[in-house]
């Protein structure tokens, strides 16, 4: 074996060995996190890898950076095949895939190497241009690693240059060796026609060395950089929350009887290994933060920072990787993710809108980390904004987050001839549908109008339904979102008991939070019901022609529909509310705000924000209302009582000439008399 080959094999072993050692370390660090079962729904997981990972579905949501990154990524995949060939050449001189690949396949492969090397080089050039000249805002802030990004881009550029140089000088050394399939390197080689073949051959050889050394260095640089995502993101997508129907944003039930030191997470050890893998996978792209309603309106929260901090704290707590030890080992044990990295204020600013999760190209779940830390604050330390205490206490005492008397819950229905389940059962009837009204719908004056409107529609369509009346009680979702899992489980179990007492199977509700909680989270506690949101229910009735509508064409409204997070991003219901308006009032003109559907901006009330003061920055509902009014709409339509309050408040405070209505009110207004 030649000395050069021995040297190469040695370098290869050292590089591969060091890399695999670091990978082992990183995997070991993940084990500091809690267990979490992440192998259910394997087919959906694989599908996610193909769609989000390989096909770059989420990356491509950004029309500028999307194609650029997809170009680099696909180029990377194709060129890796070439890299393997080049490395084997170092051990077996003269090795080429041509030895066993059919000629046309080899030619195609050969052409692909040229094509993607050029493509990647162009994408890298654009990436430099974008960062240096276009300067997208989302890449800033949160102490992101700009230097790291340039270094990596430079290295990728270097890889492409050395690759193309190798091809071209090879061509110059062996005139006629490059076929037309080498459509990039052949013209380059032609330019080098004047170089002596021997010189060209040695430059080509040097380029080979530079290229493989760069590959090996790049590999070993990854674990130290945000570009670790190259290695982890496909795994991260595979293990991410499965996101099937009814699975999005579902908070997992805690074992409250567990004999543990603390509940929830104030440090990385209480997060799950998947939360920690999220930390490895973050590319610091800032898409999450750019979509975060709290961040947009000047609150201290940045979901990107939450994820970066998780990785930083993990690395600090384990002492980092060899060569780059992070911090002195002392006092590390006294530090925590909470307070030392992430403050309480950041955590309480979250509206649980899921925009961050929706946007993240590598399927990181920022919200899960936030929720686990909120749980710690409430359950272990009883630390939360003081406005929340009355809400907790009221939920516990009155079964509603507001201090209304439970006895008044069914008051809206007085005189409307709507039976309660108790009355129906006493009369020997078993209604087919339960209308779950919810706390807002029962007590809030504005929301009660929606409640009545929806009840009128149900009656006009002859639906056999009943309400629980006084027996309805909060399902606890607000408590759960605010971190009070204990109160949540108490309330949820109580609600399930009531529902099961009346053998309820089908539930309709006009509140997306009730819809999500009853339909998607109650199964954890054994509550199995078919839950339908009123938008879907009314739309179906309209489609079946069961709603007796007026014959006049009605008012030609210009309607901007505001997407509710818990209906949209949590449950993928985007069309039903729009379709409901279209069918009930065909003359209406539907307009879309800039951010709509899965990009819709939160109203600001979710995640318990409804009960907290909004002290910092611009009000989220103001930001949203401005956007909705900018469409020129005279009517803002909502499908959620929380959105209703937020939008109505903001429209009122700016004295705008627009109405805020629930989609049920639009339909109820159109009911034929009688």
């Amino acid at each position, binding site marked *: 074996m030649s000395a050069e080959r021995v040297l190469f094999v040695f370098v290869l072993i050292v590089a591969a060995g060091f890399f695999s050692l670091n990978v082992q370390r990183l995997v070991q660090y993940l084990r500091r996190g809690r267990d979490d079962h992440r192998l259910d729904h394997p087919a959906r997981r694989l599908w996610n890898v193909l769609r989000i990972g390989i096909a770059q579905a989420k990356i491509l949501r950004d029309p500028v950076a999307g194609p650029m990154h997809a170009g680099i990524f696909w180029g990377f995949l194709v060129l890796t095949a070439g890299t393997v060939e080049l490395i084997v050449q170092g051990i077996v001189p003269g090795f080429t895939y041509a030895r066993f690949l059919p000629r046309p396949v080899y030619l195609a492969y050969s052409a692909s190497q040229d094509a993607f090397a050029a493509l990647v080089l162009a994408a890298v050039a654009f990436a430099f241009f974008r960062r240096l000249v276009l300067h997208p805002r989302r890449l800033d802030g949160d102490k992101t690693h700009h230097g790291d990004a340039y270094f990596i881009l430079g290295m990728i550029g270097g890889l492409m240059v050395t690759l193309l140089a190798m091809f071209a000088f090879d061509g110059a050394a062996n005139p006629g060796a490059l076929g037309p399939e080498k459509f990039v390197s052949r013209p380059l080689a032609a330019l080098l026609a004047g170089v002596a073949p021997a010189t060209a051959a040695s430059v080509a050889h040097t380029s080979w060395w530079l290229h493989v050394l760069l590959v090996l260095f790049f590999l070993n640089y990854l674990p130290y950089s945000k570009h670790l995502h190259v290695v982890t993101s496909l795994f991260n997508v595979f293990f991410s929350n499965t996101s099937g129907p009814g699975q999005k944003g579902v908070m997992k039930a805690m074992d409250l009887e567990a004999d543990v030191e603390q509940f929830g997470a104030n440090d990385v050890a209480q997060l799950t290994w998947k939360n920690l893998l999220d930390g490895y996978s973050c590319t610091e792209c800032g898409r999450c933060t750019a979509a975060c309603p709290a961040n947009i309106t000047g609150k201290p929260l940045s979901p990107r920072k939450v994820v970066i901090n998780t990785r930083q704290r993990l690395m600090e707590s384990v002492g980092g990787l060899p060569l780059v030890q992070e911090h002195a080992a002392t006092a590390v044990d006294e530090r925590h993710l909470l307070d030392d990295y992430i403050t309480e204020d950041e955590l309480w600013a979250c509206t649980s809108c899921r925009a961050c999760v929706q946007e993240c190209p590598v399927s990181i779940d920022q919200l899960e980390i936030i929720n686990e830390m909120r749980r710690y604050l409430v359950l272990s330390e009883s630390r939360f904004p003081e406005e929340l205490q009355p809400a907790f*206490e009221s939920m516990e005492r009155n079964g509603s987050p507001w201090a209304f*008397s439970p006895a008044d819950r069914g008051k809206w229905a007085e005189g409307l001839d709507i039976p309660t389940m108790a009355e129906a059962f006493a009369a020997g009837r078993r209604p087919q549908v339960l209308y779950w009204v919810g706390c807002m719908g029962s007590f809030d004056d504005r929301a009660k109008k929606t409640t009545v409107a929806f009840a009128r529609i149900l009656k006009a369509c002859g639906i056999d339904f009943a309400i629980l009346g006084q027996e309805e009680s909060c399902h606890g979702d607000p408590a759960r979102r605010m971190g009070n899992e204990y109160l949540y489980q108490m309330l949820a179990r109580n609600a399930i008991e009531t529902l099961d007492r009346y053998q309820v199977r089908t539930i309709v509700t006009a509140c997306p939070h009730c819809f999500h909680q009853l339909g998607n989270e109650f199964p954890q506690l054994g509550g199995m019901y078919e839950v339908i949101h009123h938008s879907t229910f009314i739309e179906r009735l309209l489609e079946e022609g069961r709603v007796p509508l007026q014959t006049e064409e009605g008012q030609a409204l210009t309607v901007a529909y505001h997407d509710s997070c818990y209906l949209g991003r949590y449950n993928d219901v985007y069309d039903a509310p729009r379709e409901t308006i279209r069918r009930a009032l065909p003359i209406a003109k539907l307009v879309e705000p800039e951010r709509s559907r899965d990009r819709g901006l939160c109203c600001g009330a979710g995640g318990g924000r409804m009960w907290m003061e909004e002290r910092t920055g611009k009000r989220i509902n103001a930001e949203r209302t401005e956007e909705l009014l900018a469409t020129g709409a005279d009517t803002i339509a909502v499908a959620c009582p929380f959105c209703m309050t937020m939008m109505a408040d903001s429209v009122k405070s700016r004295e705008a000439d627009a109405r805020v209505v629930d989609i049920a009110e639009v339909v109820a207004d159109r009911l034929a008399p009688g």
Partner: protein
Amino acid sequence: MKIAVCIKRVPDMESRFKIAANGVSIDETGLKFDISDFDAYAVEVALQINEKAGSGETTVICLGPDVVQETIRKALSMGADKGVQLKADSVPADSLAIAKALAAELKDGGYELILFGKHSLDAMTGGAGTMVAELLGLPCLTAASKLEISGSKAVARRELEGAAEMLEFPLPAVVTIDEGIARPRYPSLKGIMAAKKKPLEVKGAQLGEVRVIVEKMELPAERPPGRIIGTGPDAVPELVRLLQTEAKVL
């Protein structure tokens, strides 16, 4: 310091009350119960005093049937150390009878401070605290809005109409607590779990003779609904007339 806090279990005041069939008590079905607000303040004050001192023991005492154990657990989950239930079938309307039972329990407990809420949210007599002080021969201070302990002395603040007074008194003493002194903490799950393991002693209540009894209970008269007598200036004469003749405020 050894502190005792006497607490009471009361129905949630947001409830719609009904009179029970016997006509002398409220119908408890469907009502939610909790620790009386002022008593919760008193528990919080006790906890803060001992936390500040870095040592001490807070005992909560509650008189009533076994359901009051839930109320005691609530105080324990906030951080009190021990609970005592003075078992009685019901809570009598006679404050002195109650005070005697409490005094019997408190007498040999070695408490340096005995706290009450300034009155219960349901009966609102405010009698038990002062009577216990009398029975035990201790100084008594009512409706404290601030309480500072220094050694064997204490200083309390009381809010008066348009003024406030500071009073100094020796310990042991009985103090009843006004609202606003300290926001009662919300028990953490950790606290709730710990409370399950804390001691809760059940003793028979040595009630005094019950001389005051409820004879009859009534709901307040329903307020007549509002009336719209018109809008604009035209309605003014009629409004004035009604204010004079019906409301008799002019």
